[in-house]
């Protein structure tokens, strides 16, 4: 008997603490101003940014493709120029990039008096060295199957010669291409930089001062940065893998900035101690019907599936409110200047029609999505309910990221009938060609010669109004296939502490979060 009483008491105590724990997390963070923990708070001249994983000790500016590695490269190296989502150019090392009449030769002019962080001059030699090294290692910068020829004219002029004209080459030459110091890497045989031992020489806004495995990366400002010395002296990337811990650390202001998920943002909304910023990465969420699955061979049936769905409902389930998404009806993100709904088949919801169209087709379907993604899980549940209403059972198959990628990009995979997904491509619409062009990677598994032809025509067309026309036709053609159901563009949310300023000047960008870190300020 006694034992029972004691256990009951202990259980009660536990339940109380559990409730307190759950309820408490929503309370505001007034206490954060307390002076008692001043020591644990970020130092006044240091901007601390929480990142969700470790970079590891080696940095390779040419092969880096993980988010944290790229974020580090973005701090210590610079591209020649950067193109923002709205198409505006941020000239960093270069001051101009001009095309010849026939669109085959581009001339890049560098700014005068550029220097590496170690004081050595940065010249056309470094540009040529970087692009040749990339061409030696991978084929990213190939146009028409040939590497772009890069030649030095004088110390500040470089020409890029293409095998055939390409409308997207200006973007191709900037995306994730960091200019590397020839005097450091030449003869080294590898582009691996050991962050624990090597001194990292770059031309970015900051220089790496210290890397501590699993803890942080510390950067100090680069006095030789091409766009002028940064406002903040020190920037720290703090590694916090657990997202709840990261959120709590921001509430306590131990960190200054964090990318948050939709369900975390509530805590910070309306609190004067924090600034909540939303921005579009041009990330398009979609449902794809698997064109090789036996169930999806009939176009009427596919249309029936789309007619059963309600975009708004699905997106609200995933992103909670319209503040965090914009509905979209084509494969391009809403923010693209080529986006148009003219003539595009929107597949508006019509349950009766859906029932009729799917009457003779499969009655049970498998939907594949990424299990770790809360938004995709919610999308999947909504789609399941909506298809249930027209008499189709959906089996939800949540798999991990790697398994998803392996199934979704296997064009012969018939294990699943539908895939949920999202992509961030480039700014130029030609970067979307690999999704639908069956002569390329064709990740959406399309087979339409008309679409292929239009994409390759648009890629080599230099006249902008002609291109707009072509991409407008493409958006119609792609929608009419009834294979991809674009749902819209979602927003990303970053929360910063109130003392962080200059957010508008720095701009938010995909992957790196902050475009020009040197423009950030601290109050």
């Amino acid at each position: 008997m006694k034992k029972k009483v004691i256990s009951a008491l202990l259980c009660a105590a536990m339940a109380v603490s559990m409730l307190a724990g759950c309820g408490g997390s929503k309370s505001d963070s007034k206490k954060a101003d307390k002076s008692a923990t001043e020591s644990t708070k970020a130092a006044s001249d240091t901007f601390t940014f929480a990142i969700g994983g470790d970079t590891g000790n080696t940095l390779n500016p040419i092969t880096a493709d993980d988010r944290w590695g790229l974020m580090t490269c973005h701090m210590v190296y610079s591209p020649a120029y950067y193109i923002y989502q709205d198409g505006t150019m941020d000239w960093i090392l270069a001051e101009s990039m001009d095309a010849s009449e026939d669109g085959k030769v581009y001339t890049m002019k560098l700014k005068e008096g550029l220097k590496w962080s170690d004081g050595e001059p940065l010249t056309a030699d470094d540009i040529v060295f970087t692009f040749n090294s990339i061409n030696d290692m991978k084929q990213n910068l190939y146009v028409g199957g040939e590497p772009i020829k890069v030649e030095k004219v004088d110390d500040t002029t470089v020409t890029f010669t293409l095998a055939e004209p390409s409308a997207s080459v200006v973007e191709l030459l900037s995306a994730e291409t960091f200019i590397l110091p020839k005097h450091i890497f030449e003869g080294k045989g590898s582009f691996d930089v050991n962050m624990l031992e090597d001194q990292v020489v770059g031309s970015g806004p900051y220089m790496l001062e210290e890397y501590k495995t699993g803890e942080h990366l510390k950067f100090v400002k680069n006095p030789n940065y091409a766009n002028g010395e940064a406002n903040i002296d020190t920037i720290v990337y703090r590694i916090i893998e657990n997202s709840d811990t990261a959120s709590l650390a921001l509430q306590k202001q131990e960190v200054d900035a964090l990318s948050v998920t939709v369900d975390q943002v509530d805590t910070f909304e309306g609190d004067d101690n924090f600034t909540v910023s939303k921005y579009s990465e041009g990330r398009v969420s979609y449902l794809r019907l698997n064109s090789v699955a036996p169930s999806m061979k009939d176009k009427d049936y596919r249309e029936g599936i789309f007619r059963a769905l309600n975009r708004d409902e699905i997106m609200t389930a995933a992103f909670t409110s319209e503040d965090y998404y914009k509905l979209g009806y084509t494969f391009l993100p809403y923010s693209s200047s080529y986006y148009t709904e003219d003539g595009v088949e929107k597949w508006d919801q019509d349950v009766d029609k859906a029932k009729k169209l799917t009457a003779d087709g499969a009655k049970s379907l498998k939907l594949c999505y990424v299990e770790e993604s809360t938004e995709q899980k919610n999308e999947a549940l909504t789609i399941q309910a909506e298809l249930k209403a027209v008499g189709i059972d959906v089996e939800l198959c949540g798999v991990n990221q790697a398994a998803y990628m392996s199934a979704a990009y296997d064009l012969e995979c018939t294990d699943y009938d539908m895939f949920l997904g999202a992509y961030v491509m480039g700014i130029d619409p030609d970067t979307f060609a690999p999704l639908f062009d069956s002569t390329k990677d064709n990740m959406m598994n399309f087979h339409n010669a008309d679409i292929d032809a239009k994409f390759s025509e648009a890629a080599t067309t230099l006249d902008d109004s002609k291109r707009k026309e072509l991409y407008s036709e493409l958006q119609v053609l792609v929608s009419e296939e009834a294979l991809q159901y674009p749902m819209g563009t979602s927003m990303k949310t970053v929360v910063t502490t109130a003392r962080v300023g200059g957010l508008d000047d720095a701009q938010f960008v995909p992957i790196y979060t902050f475009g020009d870190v040197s423009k950030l300020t601290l109050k």
Partner: protein
Amino acid sequence: MKYIVKRILQAIPLLLIITFICFMLINLAPYDAIDSITTPDMTKQEIEAKREAYGLNDPVIVQYGRWLGNICRGEFGYSLRSRTSISYDLKSRIPSTIKLVLPSYLTAFLLAIVLGLVAGSHKNQWQDKLIDGICSIGIATPTFWFAMIIMFFFGYKLELFPLMGMHTIGKEDSILDFLQHFIMPYVVLTVGFIPDLTRYVRGSTIGQLKEDYVIVQKSFGASKAEILFRHVSKNVLLPLITKLGMALPMLVTGAVITETIFSWPGIGPYFVSAVQAMDYPIVMSILVLSGTLVILGNLLSDILYCVTDPRIKSMK
């Protein structure tokens, strides 16, 4: 001495089998490390080139052979995801984990002996019920939840300790600063270790108290405390040596969840993210380390047995 050498030699095929099975299991998955770093804007060519470069297209047995060759030369290799040197990462992460796990385990061990003896000797009395009840709850409480509760109250609400990490940046040499960061994960981990050990000691104590020598001591008029701490405790401690030996691999993988939650720069978060991404060189390296420690731990406890208990020595 011959015995020890024999045992170590026996361990080698065992390690080979462990690593082989793990390697095969990793390869059974229908996807690999390259899939985990693929993004929609990467071309098929690029992805295939990576797979080729990392040798993932070779037959499994060739991959295993290559990996084994490297390990024998003492090379842990490079992460498939970030191409960073694994030995560098391990070199700085293992000491961090040991700094956290060792004190926690020793504290839990000592507390468990005391609590277990008290509970066992007061079987079915209130002391026993209290200790056993708390242990039941302790076993049933998930570590991540307890860690978040501790962090929320002591780190966030009361602001007694920094929320996470091992040091404040720039104060890496300050012991006081380290201790401030250390306390919360240390408490969580200690609490996590105690229940299981306590129950073990309690069970063993109850068993020993039934032995004849206890009755003999009683009849000689020895006090209860004297019996418990001078005679019973010695016999209870003997099986605990096995526990201690088995705890050796914990120095590497003993705090995976706690470390992840408190952003402690140890092996835990590193291992978890590697498993998720099928980054097999990292997973295999950690496995070899902990596998070796399991075998060494067993060996160590066998040797300690011989040293502490003359009866076992004479049995051979």
